[in-house]
């Protein structure tokens, strides 16, 4: 597609439920990144994928967080047993390759845990 597409745009879930967030990167972009942005804060790196290499999971805050990517296309970020502190906007970005200078961000998924 023309841009990075994320769904849903908004998600309200009850504490303790699992959620899945989806990201469709720009076609041809081999690198895909997930970031979290809490209200009024900067972006925290969560995880990134580069082609078929093992993902860099160094930013995942706990084992409740996981992400998968199918080849060089769609990625899903899963949060299990959601907690209120998980409430944030989850942003996905893609680039032609890791370290390339052009990152394009999606519009994000606003997650609210009640």
């Amino acid at each position, binding site marked *: 597609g023309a841009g990075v597409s994320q769904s849903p745009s908004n998600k309200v879930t009850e504490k303790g439920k699992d959620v899945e967030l989806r990201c469709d990167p720009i076609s041809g972009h081999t*690198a895909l*990144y997930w*970031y979290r942005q809490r209200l009024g*804060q*900067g*972006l*925290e*790196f969560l995880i*990134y994928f*580069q082609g078929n290499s093992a993902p*860099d999971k160094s*930013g995942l805050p706990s084992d409740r967080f996981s992400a998968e990517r199918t080849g060089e296309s769609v990625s899903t970020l899963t949060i299990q047993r959601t907690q209120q502190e998980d409430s944030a906007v989850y*942003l996905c970005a893609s*680039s032609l*390759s*890791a*370290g*390339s*200078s*052009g*990152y*394009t*961000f*999606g*519009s*994000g998924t606003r997650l609210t845990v009640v």
Partner: protein
Amino acid sequence: ELKVEQNPLFLSMQEGKNYTIYCNYSTTSDRLYWYRQDPGKSLESLFVLLSNGAVKQEGRLMASLDTKARLSTLHITAAVHDLSATYFCAVDGRGSQGNLIFGKGTKLSVKP
């Protein structure tokens, strides 16, 4: 650990005035990025600075990079209300393999 610090975090200025936002980072980096974020929106890329001494300008915004001082500046000239937004700098640290480390952002409010 690479750290990125921006200041100020909040900036209220009048239209027509000039101001500079500063971005300091803690370790050597090859690239520095500036992004703009409007409330409830995603990030819009403004500038990518790739080398020491790089200067880029777009409209009323000018960004520069001093890799020796580990400092980038975003200069606003004759501010207008439309520039009101949050501005983030981000660094692509050497060995980071591509993930960006962001500053906390500078929330700019330009008042008529």
